[in-house]
């Protein structure tokens, strides 16, 4: 990929970091007339270590949990200045800062109707502090604070349904996306930016370090999450499910076996079955299964 003027190379993300790739795709899709407010987290740390910055757009980091509120203030200031129509505002953060500690600020931003796109880069744990579980860590994931042991096979709860929580605010647009499907992500960001009001996109971004997979396997890991039904790609408009990416479902083992964080499940059919149930439930709930055409039809 050639160097991007909006998210420049030379930052310090790990090789194969899904978040770095997704963040670049997001800002390139949004364009130069964009102001970004960023929560604390990997993205902030690896892209803006003083005296350097990777960002070619105006960018601000304040705290861990407040990018949605900081962006609300930026948007209000742009409205006051009569410049809102010319400038996009993006607030962004990781799964922990969006779904856990920053959920209140995000909900406030959505409820107040600000014209802001919120992007949650979901790598499914607190990676910046060393792989602690978050509200978006999947069921049975081995993390440093949901470690496997004689009494535990990892994280005891499924992912918090953030897209539905955001959609329940009645906002115009909610979508999930994946670093494994770059064109789909770009399309969704462009679509969101064109809609006035609050928007939420949650992007699944593999973390080679935290998920324990080879750096060069980032895309295939991301794709497998979608293809198994564990990370369904869909869009909500005004609270109603509007579109989804259909798949020919693969068994969840195809996804789990690629990652060290799920290694303990591979010889444990009982636990793997529970993960398969989550995928099956998604497939049913979002109608993900591609219908094969009946012969002769």
């Amino acid at each position, binding site marked *: 990929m050639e160097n991007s003027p909006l998210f420049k190379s030379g930052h310090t993300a790990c090789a194969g970091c899904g978040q770095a790739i997704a963040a670049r795709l997001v800002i390139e899709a949004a364009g130069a007339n964009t102001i970004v407010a960023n929560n604390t987290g990997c993205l902030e*740390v690896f892209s803006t270590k003083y005296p350097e910055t990777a960002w070619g757009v105006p960018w601000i980091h304040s705290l861990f949990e407040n990018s949605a509120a900081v962006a609300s203030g930026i948007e209000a200031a742009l409205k006051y200045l009569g410049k809102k129509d010319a400038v996009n505002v993006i607030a962004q953060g990781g799964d922990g800062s969006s779904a856990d500690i920053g959920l209140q600020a995000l909900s406030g931003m959505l409820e107040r109707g600000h014209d802001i796109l919120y992007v949650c880069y979901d790598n499914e744990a607190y990676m910046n502090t060393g792989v602690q579980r978050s509200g978006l860590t999947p069921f049975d994931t081995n993390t440093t604070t949901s470690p496997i042991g004689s009494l535990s096979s990892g994280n005891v709860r499924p992912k918090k349904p953030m897209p539905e929580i955001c959609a329940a605010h009645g906002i115009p647009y909610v979508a999930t996306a994946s670093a494994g499907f770059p064109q789909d992500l770009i399309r969704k960001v462009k679509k969101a930016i064109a809609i006035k009001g609050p928007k939420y996109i949650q992007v699944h971004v593999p973390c080679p370090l935290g998920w324990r997979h080879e750096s060069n396997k980032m895309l295939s890991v991301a794709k497998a999450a979608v293809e198994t039904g564990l990370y369904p790609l869909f869009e909500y408009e005004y609270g109603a499910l509007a579109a989804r990416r259909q798949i020919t479902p693969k068994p969840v083992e195809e996804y789990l076996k690629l990652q060290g964080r799920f290694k303990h499940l591979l010889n444990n059919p009982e636990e793997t079955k529970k993960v398969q149930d989550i995928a099956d439930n998604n497939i049913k709930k979002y109608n993900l299964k591609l219908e094969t055409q009946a012969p002769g039809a």
Partner: protein
Amino acid sequence: MKEFLEGSHAIAEVIKSCQPGVVSAYPITPQTHIVEDLAQMVSNGELKSQFVNVESEHSAASVVLGGSAAGVRVYTATSSQGLFYMQEVLFNIAGMRLPVVMTCANRAVSAPINIWNDQQDSISLRDSGWFQLYAENNQEAVDFHLIAYRLGEDKRVMLPVMVCMDGFILTHGMETVDIPEQEKVNKFLPAYKPLYKLDPENPISLGLLADPDYYMETRFVIQETMREAIGYLSGISKEFSDVFGRDYKDMLVEEYRLKDADKVIVAMGSVCGTIKEVVDEQRAKGKKVGLLRIISYRPFPYARIYEALKNIPKVAVLDKAVSLGAYAPVAADVKSLFFGKKKSPKVISSFVGGLGGRDITTETIHEVFRRLNAKEANFDFVDLKPELLKEEYGE
């Protein structure tokens, strides 16, 4: 124009004249009347601001942070727990050198929950990098907001300013206040022109990670700016006086009947009105007493206070806050400034009073002067109720 107004309404009037582009607040007693009035002004079209009704004080502070970073003048107000909930954002605003102005309607902090006045809330935020100006009455509270914007937005300063006014006593008190006319405000406080802002025409990054090679200097320069701002305040005050005719001298302290005084009370805020009354009464009886009122608590005007108190034999510091387990906060600052100095009061006694809204009456002040004798008092509480303590700890 002189009007008989509630303090909160007077503050809303002066904020309207400052024309902030973004106002954001979350309701907490006793701050509410200020922001209710501002919301009404926006609703009536008298104030062309974006009023952002947030879901918490943390977000109120974050919204004004974002608005200020986007290059507009901003305002918020809070109290007590709300100020504490803002705390990490307040340090952040100062570190990012954003000239946010806020009103702290001073109130006690939990537990036990108590909505009445003391100054524990703002004093606990003394290390945050915010200027703290304490008003004695509503006229000052109004005027200090104009000075706050001028000071914070001064290109030599670029720091946030907190105007502290005692909750209920001032916020809900009715007084005659001269509300500054718009043309005079425009003369004193020109439109805000930010030194730096988030702007796609000139993209900059704000709020970067500073490792041990860089962090210390960010704190050093704020400390230097605070120190230098002690001098800027008198210049801004002079300009204020030229435009509005009210003279706050150096804006650091007020000396009240200090010349030749044997006994002086040091205090901040509305209680100083009560102290002045007692000083006048005792002076009329030939007693040499006085008041040193601290206006600027941060930056703390060490040299100015030294000059004012160095020849006073007995000084009592009356704190409306505590630092549990240590000397009372203002008393500790006053005591520390005399260490190793040639001249010093013989006694610097520390008294704590008025916590959680307990009235500090003229009798309380007489009592402080009585207890200010050769034996130094250290964080002696005044107006305690011994019968309540017996109930709690009695045999």
